[in-house]
């Protein structure tokens, strides 16, 4: 099975980095989250309800929809904050990228650890620009808002191709497909990583952040 890969690029001002990334990540996760599964006897299960909420950006003329889950929002904000700090501290050209990878776990026999097989990867390339005047910043607010609208349309287009999705798991397999650690929603298993690059695209600092404890790599 091939992992499909989508790449999005955004050029933003420094203070817009977080909101732009959250908008993209939340839009993807909105489509890749379900309600909590409740397994019953005879192999049936019921699914909880996913709520949604609108989020207005402070530095961009843009509103996005995210899943109503504070835990998920906190987790994303944490990693996006780390990315922003890394970008700022790198002192480079302000180029970096963040990857949101959906994967499945495949149990391996001892002594080998479980395999993580990605089935979809979203990469957001971020280019930070520095603006001098307030007027430029105002224009940037609107322009970035329009760009993010296009990104959301792109994301939705990909989602609605109805390409490969992991099969609905049995109760014993559910943790290999979904992240069941959240209280109110259940996204597919995912991990987020980022790296700061220089202008040539090579990795100056490679930083891996694991969001889910049970992702392992030998």
């Amino acid at each position, binding site marked *: 099975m091939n992992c499909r890969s989508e790449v999005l690029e955004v050029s933003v001002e420094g203070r817009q980095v977080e909101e732009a990334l959250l908008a993209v990540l939340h839009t993807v996760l909105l489509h890749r989250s379900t309600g909590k599964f409740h397994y019953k006897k005879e192999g*049936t299960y*019921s699914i909880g*309800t996913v709520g*949604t909420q609108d989020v207005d950006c402070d530095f961009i003329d843009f*509103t996005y929809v995210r899943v109503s*889950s504070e835990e998920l929002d906190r987790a994303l904000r944490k990693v996006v904050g780390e990315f922003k700090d890394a970008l700022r501290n790198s002192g480079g050209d302000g180029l970096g990228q963040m990857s949101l990878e959906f994967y499945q776990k495949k149990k391996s026999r001892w002594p080998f650890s479980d395999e993580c097989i990605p089935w979809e990867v979203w990469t957001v390339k971020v280019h930070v620009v520095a603006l001098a005047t307030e007027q430029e910043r105002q224009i940037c607010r609107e322009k970035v808002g329009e760009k993010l609208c296009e990104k*959301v349309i792109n994301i*939705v287009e990909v989602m609605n191709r109805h390409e490969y999705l992991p099969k609905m798991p049995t109760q014993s397999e559910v943790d290999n497909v979904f992240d069941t650690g959240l209280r109110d929603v259940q996204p597919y298993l995912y991990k987020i990583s980022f790296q700061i690059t220089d202008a040539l695209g090579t990795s100056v600092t490679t930083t891996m952040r694991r969001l889910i404890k049970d992702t392992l790599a030998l």
Partner: protein
Amino acid sequence: METDLNSQDRKDLDKFIKFFALKTVQVIVQARLGEKICTRSSSSPTGSDWFNLAIKDIPEVTHEAKKALAGQLPAVGRSMCVEISLKTSEGDSMELEIWCLEMNEKCDKEIKVSYTVYNRLSLLLKSLLAITRVTPAYRLSRKQGHEYVILYRIYFGEVQLTGLGEGFQTVRVGTVGTPVGTITLSCAYRINLAFMSTRQFERTPPIMGIIIDHFVDRPYPSSSPMHPCNYRTAGEDTGVTYPSVEDSQEVCTTSFSTSPPSQCVFTVTKAHFQTPTPVVTDTLRVPMAGLAFSHQLSSSRLSYQPAALGVGSADLAYPVVFAAGLNATHPHQLMVPGKEGGVPLAPNQPVHGAQADQERLATCTPSDGTHCAATPSSSEDTETVSNSSEGRASPHDVLETIFVRKVGAFVNKPINQVTLTSLDIPFAMFAPKNLELEDTDPMGSLHSDGSSGGSSGNTHDDFVMIDFKPAFSKDDILPMDLGTFYREFQNPPQLSSLSIDIGAQSMAEDLDSLPEKLAVHEKNVREFDAFVETLQ
């Protein structure tokens, strides 16, 4: 050819498409209300959330959608369209977007209706949620107010895009293939907003704000009326109470199966809610300038039953028996062979006993096993209705526990505990005050039991009153009957302006100054006449 689709699947599919259409309209209109939308996730299935998404149902919008659909479903050549337009305070209007739910002939015979189609429709609704925030009309709708408002109109049939001006753009939200055709959801939106920027925003705002709770706008005489994208209480202006008030609600309890591919299990539940008229409490702001749909609305919704999606008249005839056969031991469970795991619950049970049925059925969760309420049963509140019923019960409970009976007014009546501190008391007499009561109790002062709870009632200890029980107007909400009310308000305090002393003085002064005033006015009679002429 539809012979491949068994009748059960066909029914399911029709139901899914119908509720998908209704939810689509809700999402679109709610996205143009001008406020942020927020719904909560729930880890336990509530039984009333179609497609596993928390999308509220505004009764008025559902009513309009059903009216437009008139019992039909989107089909080839018959699309459901939601038109969003803008109307300025001067009366100019402009179409902004047309959202189209269409069906084409391209069929996907292999697809599983009850699982794959359902999940894909859910995904499509999520996409719709995202896309409705990125078209240009969204930002306009967030700023609606005094200068303009956003209106919606639902129609069914041919898509009319001519009102969008030149160069409109189209965005496709998504498609879902089904055995009877492919459902497509798209939006065509105007990009030429020129008249807006030059004419509208340079003018000063009107002196009088526009109150946006009257809204009939008929750009096409034969088409359906426009409605504002705001919320108002049912029956406020038009006197219409929407049928959803008494409809039953089809429950969509999703139960999926991961059994071996050879069989899937359906469990069917049905809940019949008693939906009272959505009496909006004081938490709902009267719509002003379109900014009516406040967050408080979502909490006030707890106090009335979820809007009934209702069942078309055709559904009433559906029998409870399912076509694929019933398992003898579990009469309400259905074993259906399937290819993959995961079969959602088919909310197939019809409204039992027609729409006027006021009884409340117990909602069964799949864990209840066979207790599927196909027939009206006792009105128990189960978990799945607990959200709504709790919310509804609590105002009653609150009022019941803290309502103050007139202390001393009723002999031998139990007095409820009083906590006045937290109570927003509607009746002034429950606040401490001095009552000038001149009647005395001929039988001496009688104190009722529990008079310690009363704050203001001590002065009434001298009264003995005969318990006046009127034969009517027993109010369930307040444990106060007409007799009590009448008695308690029989002796209101005098208005200060009507008291003799003050009134007499001002009257005398007025009378004295009258001749002077008349003289002045007579002098200026020509000015007055000229002024009157300018008014004509």
